[in-house]
């Protein structure tokens, strides 16, 4: 058992290497080049402290949900709200998290309805406990039936339809819609929406979203298989950026459009690698959901009058307006 003694030289070498290389800094890029940018701040309310639970179906490490959460945090900071964030992509677990929020006697719950049936019971319990519940992001067709107060999000099918129409304007003939998570309802609805309004051919391609090299080669393969493809429609920013690489690798002339934004994507739009993005403004969804609960508690308001959803998308970001958005995307809030 002299392993620990053998580890010491290894650690010493590592430490020495770290010290030597510490002098080896990059003259371009990196943190030093990044401008110090703080998130939006709108002051702070002096209303009594309240607690809001935001429960989503986020999978770990997804850039989209990170933006939703930042919006919620910004609203919470402004409204003197303590935000309790939790998430689980498995519907049953998400229901448990909502129950957990009820047990904590929070003052309001914001929830995503990716699988409405699984959340029906627990949302009923929240009503019994007199806790107002609002919906966001997914569930635009179910929130009223479940008795939620209001809803903030985009209708995925409507967003898909908007993108399909845009493809017609761009003169596209043959598009492939790339689904990075097979079986995800929202993603399927987007492609269905595209199919509905796009007058050309819409094909579907499933890729393994947790493995980027695989995403890249699968899109490349598809572009080679059908050389008449002239548009790749991605359903998430990182996948759109990878699709750009696939297009050049396949020697294809296809253009790339996408749903959702991030900071690298805005520079790709600026550079002309990506034509346009449909933005559902996730920051707004998180922000409005929390803010609405504050408004309800302090002034009895509800947006949409309890009848209509409040739509946060689809907003198009393309070369014409990307400048205005890029700065916010760089901060990770658009």
């Amino acid at each position, binding site marked *: 058992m002299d*392993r620990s003694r053998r*580890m010491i030289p290894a650690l010493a070498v*590592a430490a020495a*290497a*770290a010290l030597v*290389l*510490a002098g*080896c*800094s*990059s*003259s*371009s*890029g*990196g*943190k*030093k*080049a*990044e401008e110090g940018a703080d998130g939006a701040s709108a002051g702070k309310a002096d209303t009594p402290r309240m607690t809001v639970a935001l429960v989503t179906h986020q*999978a*770990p*490490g*997804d*850039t989209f*949900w*990170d933006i939703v959460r930042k919006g919620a945090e910004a609203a919470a900071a402004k409204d003197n709200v303590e935000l309790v964030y939790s998430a689980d992509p498995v519907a049953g677990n998400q229901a448990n998290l909502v129950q957990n929020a009820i047990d904590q006697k929070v003052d309001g719950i914001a929830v995503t309805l990716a699988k409405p049936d699984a959340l029906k019971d627990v949302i009923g319990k929240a009503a019994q406990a007199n806790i107002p519940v609002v919906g966001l992001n997914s569930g635009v067709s179910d929130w009223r039936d479940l008795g939620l107060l209001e809803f903030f999000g985009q209708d995925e099918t409507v967003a898909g339809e908007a993108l399909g129409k845009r493809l017609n304007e761009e003169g596209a003939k043959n598009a492939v819609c790339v*689904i990075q998570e*097979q079986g995800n309802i929202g993603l399927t609805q987007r492609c269905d929406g595209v199919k509905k309004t796009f007058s050309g051919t819409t094909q*579907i*391609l*499933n890729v*393994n979203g*947790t*493995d*980027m*090299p*695989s995403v*890249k*080669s*699968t899109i*490349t*393969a*598809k572009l*080679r*298989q*059908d050389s008449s493809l002239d548009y790749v429609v991605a359903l998430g920013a*990182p996948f759109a*950026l*990878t699709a750009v*690489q696939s297009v050049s*690798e*396949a*020697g294809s002339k296809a253009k790339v459009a996408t749903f959702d934004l*991030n900071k*690298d994507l805005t520079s790709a739009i600026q550079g002309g690698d990506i034509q346009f993005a449909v933005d559902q403004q996730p920051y707004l969804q998180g922000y409005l959901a929390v803010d609405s609960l504050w408004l309800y508690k302090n002034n009895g308001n509800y947006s949409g009058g309890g009848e209509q959803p409040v739509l946060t998308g689809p907003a198009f970001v393309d070369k014409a307006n990307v400048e205005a958005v890029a700065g916010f995307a760089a901060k*990770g809030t658009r």
Partner: protein
Amino acid sequence: MGMTQQAAPTVSPPSAPGPRADGRTRERPLALRLLARPEVGVFLGAAAVLVFFLIAAPTVRQGNSMATVLYQASTIGIMALPVALLMIGGEFDLSAGVAVITSALTASMLSYQLTLNVWMGVIVALVVSLGIGAFNGWLLVRTGLPSFLVTLGTFLILQGVNLAITKLVTGNVATDDISNMDGFEGARAIFASSFDVGGVQVKITVVWWLVFAALATWVLLRTKYGNWIFAVGGNQDSARAVGVPVTFTKITLFMLVGFGAWFVGMHQLFSFNTVQSGEGVGQELIFIAAAVIGGCLLTGGYGSAIGPVFGAFMFGMVNQGIVYAGWNPDWFKAFLGVMLLGAVLINLWVSRTATRR
């Protein structure tokens, strides 16, 4: 003891143990002896899949398409190699998929946040990756827990750490773009460039994959260390009894997996410039599948390094072949599963036929 004997494939076919030179049995025919090699079944399976798609999907016949298939195979294959060696050594590693992302995140964040030459990040990431491997191996040897439990633990830890640290450091769940930083081009040339072969763009990972495979084959068949791997995987106690350094062998095998994770992680970082912290989950099963299809037994002590090469190739071929064939994508995963099971069954049938009588 029989297991260690069996372990050296150059000496005798693994499935023909026991006394053979007593005159009761004749020398088995060459074809059967060949079939008993761990990689032959998967070779036939891979050939069958290749021929199938060459017929079913005309696009596959182009050189570029084959380059794409090989690229996909190489990113799986580079990891499948150390995973296979580890499996021959009697253990497996569930943390291998997320460890790739851990490595890429480390390199990216370190160089970006401290504004260092990216090579600095690359080197520290290597240290971190080898460290994770060493930790897995050390804990396993120290506690005697099954590798399933130990690496399930590290799998969950890494998954959480990847996410939490990335968020803590960058404020986002993806890393920042490092493509304009010093050293990036050089690192890209090594980990993620491509070169031209008769008008076809071939990814450098394909070359690395084959180089590593050749190296692993040599180590496994021609070195003392290779014998140790077979020995500890066959029977740990007898191996220890005859003087094989079991602890050293197991820990270094886990570190080899760490090395593979580092290499693939660097490839991902330098070909996509940024890394999403949630990636990698589920990849460990694909690496293990490639090794198993490649003829490595889950029970250890048997397998080869060349088998997983064909295993990874088959995975890439099926994966891309379905797309090239233009089949209904709803069935994608099911197609994949059926073809892989089919290949494993061919594998099984070949080895049974070969070892009968």
